[in-house]
């Protein structure tokens, strides 16, 4: 069976948590959640995860800890967490917006609000997931900085944005001025397509690799164990 785009996205999200050790994986969004669970079942077995509410649960759902919001917020500032948040807008330095579109004083579209993005980005690694890569999301300048980007993080001791994953590829900030770089394209996507869907000048290396293939075991876990209902295909189609 061929690997779907959604499955490449799962792999790209899972890779965000590789090597993280014994920290809380906080995926927001369905494909990041499948990715985090895949990472924990394979190459990052020490990750902690919640049941979506206040309990820490093992791979089989066994309760192993208690993490109500107040302890969750304390865990954030202790740094032992890697969150993957959504982004209604994100810019070249990784500033993220989930608050509102347009002028904050009287927004054109009110969204969620800043939520925990300001505290997340100054305290624990924060990655992002964008299920539909477009110029409306990848913008020159975000309307409201919620998650702090590299150009606003001077002197912030724990600021780090490991990666951004979209339905088209994987992006990082491994450039001299920390502007966003295309790290890999998902198989079937061209560099030109990514450029076309991005509202700022992306750093593109001479050779852009493809997002890696899932192993047979990973595919089996995704399809049969973690997401047998194939909910992932509703978040990212083919």
């Amino acid at each position, binding site marked *: 069976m061929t690997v779907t785009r959604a499955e490449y996205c799962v792999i790209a999200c899972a890779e965000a948590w590789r090597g993280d050790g014994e920290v809380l994986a906080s995926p927001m969004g369905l494909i990041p959640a499948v990715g985090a669970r895949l990472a924990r079942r394979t190459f990052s077995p020490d990750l902690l995860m919640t049941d979506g*509410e*206040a*309990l820490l649960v093992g791979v089989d759902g066994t309760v192993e800890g*208690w993490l*109500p*919001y*107040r302890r969750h*917020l304390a865990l*954030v*500032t202790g740094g032992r967490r890697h969150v993957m948040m959504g982004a209604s807008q994100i810019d070249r330095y990784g500033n993220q917006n989930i*608050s*509102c579109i347009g002028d*904050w*004083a*009287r*927004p*054109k*579209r*009110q*969204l*969620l*609000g*800043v*939520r*925990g*993005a*300001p*505290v997340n*980005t*100054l*305290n624990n690694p924060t990655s992002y997931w964008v299920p539909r890569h477009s110029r409306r999301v990848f913008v020159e300048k975000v309307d*409201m*900085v*919620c*998650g*702090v980007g590299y150009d*606003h*993080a*001077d*002197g*912030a*001791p*724990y*600021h780090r944005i490991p990666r951004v994953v979209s339905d088209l590829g994987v992006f990082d900030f491994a450039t001299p001025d920390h502007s966003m770089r295309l790290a890999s394209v998902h198989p079937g996507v061209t560099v030109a397509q990514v450029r076309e869907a991005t509202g700022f000048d992306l750093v593109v290396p001479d050779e852009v690799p493809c997002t890696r293939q899932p192993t047979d075991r990973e595919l089996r876990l995704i399809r049969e164990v973690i997401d047998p209902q194939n909910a992932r295909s509703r978040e990212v189609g083919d």
Partner: protein
Amino acid sequence: MSDKTMTADEVVSRLRSGMTLGIGGWGSRRKPMALVRALLRSEVTDLTIVAYGGPDVGMLAAAGRIRKLVAAFVTLDSIPLEPHYRAAREAGAFELMEIDEAMFMWGLHAAANRLPFLPVRAGLGSDVMRVNPGLRTVTSPYDDGETFVAVPALRLDAALVHVNRADRQGNGQYLGPDPYFDDLFCEAADTAYLSCERVVDTAELTKEAAPQSLLIGRHTVTGVVEAPNGAHFTSCAPDYARDEAAQREYATTPWPEFAERYLAPSEGAGS
């Protein structure tokens, strides 16, 4: 010991227009909806609302009762964007102090501890600083010299919270997995009103539940309201889950039409 039980309407009779009200719960979880409903039936308005926002904020916004909101978000959880809050914001209906979830928590802690502020590593570099020009920073007096946001105390005139059980003196117990910040809301407030699913004898509280479930101390509580189903349609684990159908109806019905049904004295419990 004083019996603090009263009705939801008696609670509201103690509230005044222009007050700063903290509302417990989180999003569409364990919100004191019976108290909010009584508030909506009253004439009390011009409020500053401090909340991890859910339908409480949406309803008060739709009814035009909010002068200023202090929040990090407003959501219905299963419906991510709160439609009435959204409409009010897009109409520029009230002032907003938009701060981060952690800043909010430390603001409550500061108020509960009678401190003017607490330093927080959050907000700097974000537009929270731009949209709240009144926020100040503080620099560590120690060798590290790091600069933090000095989150001001979120002191409240009154707090409204809902828990699973309480005794008549105001000891409140939560039986679900998350206390949210309801104890902090009560400690940060000059007066606090606690509604609960069931009022029980004090001895009953720890008969089957661990003492750690005694979240709210009577020394922080002014009034106790027995309000079965008093968080409906938000969740109140383990007594009941969110009523998704009722929430959908709220989210898709024009407010005046919904309010007519929802605020009728016979509708729902605990009122």
